[in-house]
């Protein structure tokens, strides 16, 4: 992902070009961001295939997008991540509705009634070291918000914790993540 402003400016121009039908701009965007974006989408997806499809759909959505990219609100990479994450959450919700309906009788204890995802999706060991360094309650709350797209009352219900505790966990968890990230940046 581009580190400096000039690179970001160029990536922004590719984004705008791609949404106006410039195939070469889309190609440049794809070459620049395919793997960085995939590295984010993979842990957010339910499978490798799911991540690949979301990756493809992200670039296709840029190609067909009519709303202009606004560099004041996010970097090009963050913009792509936002689209890819939204695609994954939408797909998972559609899928989970089907799973809950079809398998309700056989596997009610396995399927979570709120999100429809399998409970072992909450396995924190699959996540990065940074997330594992948070207290479990904080990591779980952040995971459910960012990966599953749940709002705070839904997280509270899923984890069986009071809403105030969940809010507090998210606030503390994000503060800790920023702190850890700064330490990594400074060390590197």
């Amino acid at each position: 992902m581009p580190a400096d402003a000039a690179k970001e400016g160029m990536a922004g121009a590719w984004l705008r070009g791609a949404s106006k039908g410039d195939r070469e701009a889309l190609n440049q965007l794809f070459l620049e961001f395919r793997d960085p974006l995939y590295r984010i989408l993979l842990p957010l997806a339910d499978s490798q295939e799911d991540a690949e499809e979301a990756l493809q759909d992200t670039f296709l959505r840029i190609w067909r997008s009519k709303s202009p990219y606004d560099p004041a609100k996010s970097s090009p990479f963050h913009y792509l991540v936002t689209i890819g994450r939204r695609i994954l959450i939408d797909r998972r919700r559609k899928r989970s509705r089907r799973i809950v309906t079809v398998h309700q009788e056989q596997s009610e204890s396995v399927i979570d009634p709120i999100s429809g995802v399998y409970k072992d999706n909450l396995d924190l060991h699959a996540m990065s070291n940074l997330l594992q360094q948070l207290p479990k309650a904080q990591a779980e709350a952040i995971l459910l918000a960012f990966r599953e797209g749940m709002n705070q009352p839904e997280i509270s219900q899923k984890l069986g914790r009071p809403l105030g505790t969940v809010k507090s966990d998210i606030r503390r968890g994000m503060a800790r993540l920023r702190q850890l990230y700064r330490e990594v940046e400074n060390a590197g």
Partner: protein
Amino acid sequence: MRDELQESVDLYVLGLLEGEELLAFEKDLGTSAELQAAVRESKEALLYAFQSPSAVSSLRFGDLEKGLGGGGEGVKILDRARKVTQLPWAWIWASAATVLLILNFLLVRGSDPGDFSAGSDSLVEIAGTSGGSALKTSTLPVRTAEDPILLLESEIRRLEEDIVQRDLVLEERQAQLEGARRVANKMETTLGSVQTKYDTLAMSFLPFFEGINGANQYTVIWMVDADSTSSGLLAGSANPFLSETDRLWSSDLASAGDLAQAASLGWEASISGTDMVSSGTPADMPMTDAMFEAINGGESVGFMVWRDKNQQGYLALYNLPATDPGFQATLWIRADSSGAYLRIGPLPELSGGSGSVYYSISDSEFQPGEVLITAEAADSLPGNPSGEILLRGGP
């Protein structure tokens, strides 16, 4: 950066801001460089935490190009839609074919076998036995691909397959219906349990008011989550306990955060409590709708009732946040915002953060005006509230 703003940044990055809050935030984001930097930092930290460092995608630009001309994502959606809309047409065609085939079959059965042979080169003489002894010959058609019987059998097989398919769809629909029924039952059960909880809560604190006549005076102080920014819950006009002699302090979060320096007052305080006390007579629930909604929504709320005559306090708590290991929820009260806090003591263990607590104070003149619950280190006895505020209420 202010804590509230940083919290909004984090919620935005996690996709937890919604509606007007989101619109307002994005409007500010477009113009504030400080906000943009904060969003970038939070997002980078979050993405760093989530990334899978060594993963490489197998997607090629050539694959992507196939979807550019109106294909890709959109095509998949169209395919799914077409499958759904094709189902009725398949049945219409199947029904029409069935009628046609039955008519054909009847025609074939009703016609002379010789019709098959007339003018046909595809007939052979086949010898066989019939009736035990008599040797007879009969004329039968050789079945070719165009043979109506074969066509009929093939159509019947196809129809049978359709019927099997239809049965499967029917079974799936029945399973869905059953699922919906079970969800409805579950909701009914949940509603029943909410009602029970509601009644239990009513029973838990109504006895406290038994025997009250007009001469008694008591104070009700609402308490809210330290994170709350809305004061809607704090409006006291719907409080059914209030009469002309009662006083109600509505919490004002802006002023409630100023913790005064405490001094030892030498008062003796005692505290006791259980989770969900259930005794006394059930009665209509004397709670405001706003408070009940907040409780059901999992918000941390509570209220304290103080009886002047008995110097007794009743504390109802709902969804109190859990404290970190080594910390305990501690109750403090004080007469007014300029006075010192009196440490009542640590709260007893409450199931799920909800329950009732009674306490009394020996000082006959004491009149509480503000109440606070903080998370204090379990191994210390601080004279002042110094830990994280869990709930607070007061003038």
